[in-house]
């Protein structure tokens, strides 16, 4: 708790780390409310607020006028105590962004604190280390992708994905047989899934897939989508493979079995339970992301078919692909573990 408070306090007073002016709102004056109605009969309220901002890493106060709409689709209502990131253009200060690092930082600190409470110091530090390494690898791949002309995006991110899987599994599970088996099944299943995706796209000639609706695109969307899918599928499949392998090793700790069929059956039953929910995980993430846009388009008088096509198309495609990967992982993992275990017991 004390550590949490410390993190919060620090991030609230870290303005000196910023090069941009940072300020805290000390006074807010609301004025000129007016009601507006757009062409689709949605009524909303436009409000102007004059903010008095005390600069934290410069001297003095500034006042900024902020206009926002009550629904806050793109504008913000600021309150006393909010900290803002500012930018000076000519003579005028203008708001760049709300300073969000303290909320995010405190939340991350809360997660780390709870992880430590649950898992002991050692395991948690490995887990966090693996995430940091992955972020580092990812940053490296991003920079490589941006700076190398005509880089093969899919190749860069496939190699990255393999490194990801290896790094996180080694750090979470240690250099054990369990880890090797999990890694092997993960890579095998991911490769099979991407192959299915590519073949399907080829067979149907990309019919009904709208790669052009992807947001924030700075390069060829189709390959970017593949790269995204490789990383997404890999995560889910790794989770699942690790679940089954962990369970099968648990069974083995209690009772050493020789028969392939024992492992096969256990693996298949556990995963029947997990399969559906695991697809749900990705489904929820992909669908939730599209919600703001869906609401906006719905309110702008678009029909469902158009909205589905424009905003949810790629999300749904990605869910289905990941689903295929998740289901494929079941037989692949069960078979591989069964095969390795039955041989391992027989050899010595």
């Amino acid at each position, binding site marked *: 708790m004390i550590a949490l408070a410390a993190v919060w306090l620090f991030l609230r007073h870290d303005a000196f780390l*910023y090069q941009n002016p940072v300020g805290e709102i000390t006074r807010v004056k609301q004025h000129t409310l007016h009601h507006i109605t757009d062409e689709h009969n*949605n009524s*909303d309220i436009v409000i102007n607020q004059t903010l008095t901002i005390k600069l934290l890493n410069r001297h003095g106060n500034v006042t900024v006028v902020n206009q926002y709409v*009550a*629904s806050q*689709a*793109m504008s*913000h209502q600021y309150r006393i105590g909010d900290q803002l990131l500012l930018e000076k253009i000519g003579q005028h200060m203008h708001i760049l*962004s*709300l300073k969000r*690092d303290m*909320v995010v930082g405190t*939340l*991350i600190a809360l997660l780390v604190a*709870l992880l430590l409470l*649950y*898992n002991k110091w050692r395991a948690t530090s490995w887990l966090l280390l*693996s*995430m940091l390494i*992955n972020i580092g690898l990812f940053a490296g791949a991003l920079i490589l992708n*941006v700076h190398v002309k005509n880089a093969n995006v899919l190749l860069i991110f496939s190699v990255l994905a393999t490194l990801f899987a290896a790094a996180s599994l080694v750090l979470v*599970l240690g250099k054990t047989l369990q880890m090797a088996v999990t890694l092997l099944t993960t890579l095998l299943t991911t490769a099979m899934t991407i192959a299915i*995706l590519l073949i*399907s796209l080829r067979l*149907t000639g990309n019919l*009904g897939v709208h790669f052009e609706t*992807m947001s924030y695109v*700075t390069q060829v969307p189709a390959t970017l989508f593949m790269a*995204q*899918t490789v990383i*997404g599928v890999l*995560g889910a499949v*790794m*989770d699942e493979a*690790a*679940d089954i392998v*962990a369970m099968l090793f*648990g069974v083995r700790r209690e009772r050493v079995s020789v028969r392939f069929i024992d492992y096969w059956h256990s693996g*298949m039953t*556990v995963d*029947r*339970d997990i*399969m559906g*929910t695991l697809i*749900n*995980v*990705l*489904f*929820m*993430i992909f669908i*939730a*992301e599209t*919600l*703001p846009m869906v609401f*906006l388009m719905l*309110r*702008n008088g678009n029909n469902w078919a158009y909205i589905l096509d424009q905003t949810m*198309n790629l999300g749904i495609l990605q869910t289905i*692909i990941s689903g*295929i990967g998740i289901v494929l992982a079941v037989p692949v993992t069960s078979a591989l573990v069964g095969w390795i275990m039955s041989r391992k017991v027989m050899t010595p």
Partner: protein
Amino acid sequence: MNTIGLLVIILFILMVFVGGGQGIKAFLGLIINFFVIFILIILINWQFNPYVVTAIMGTIILAVAIYLGADNADVADTAFKTSVIVVAILMLLSIVIQYFGQFQGFANENSEELEGLSLTVGLSFSHIAMIVMVISILGAVSEAAMAIVADLNEVVQRTTDMTSQSLYAHTRIIGGQILGTAINTLFFGVLGANLPLLIWFVRLKYSLAMFVNAKLLMVEVVTMVLGMLGILLSIWLASWFVVRRYVRQQKVGINNERDI
């Protein structure tokens, strides 16, 4: 033929092949949840109270995901109980976070997509931000709860004479491993989903200050961290439920033997 249609058929065939009747149920669950989210969108669009709608629809989604996913009623009950409690806690947390962090709506980076759309739509986007956070954690929470309960049940069934200490040790080992990999899944899922956005940020040379404060990126980080909290809490709570039930069953068993 439509690519998505073809892939749906492949998915269905695979699910039936691997899961049998269970696979059909899980497939059905996905479709039902798709419609539940539709209903949620429509209700919010009609301006029903967003908190009530999210709580009810969230519970339905969890129930569908868990009861149509699991074939063992014990596993499903425990997982459902855990998930509902955890999601309730996280929903409160997300309301607090949304209040302080203002993660709603769109940013300048979206201008291209927003062209021609009216932004004064009279629908509170801060409520929508809360809904997005809650919906995206539902899957992760229910999955973690199911995974740990299913694994522990499997261990309990396979080994008949186990002390509660031994079971407790199992919850720690299995729990730690599921935690690690589940957190990684979420991490990869979010990284993958935000690949274009991150490339955009790097290409346009955003300053570090914008990286850690920009709404579009931070909302993803917050969703991810909330999901991780959800995974952790549900593993914790679920293993506690399982151990408690096992201990109680053992006591009953011993009492029965004495009666005989």
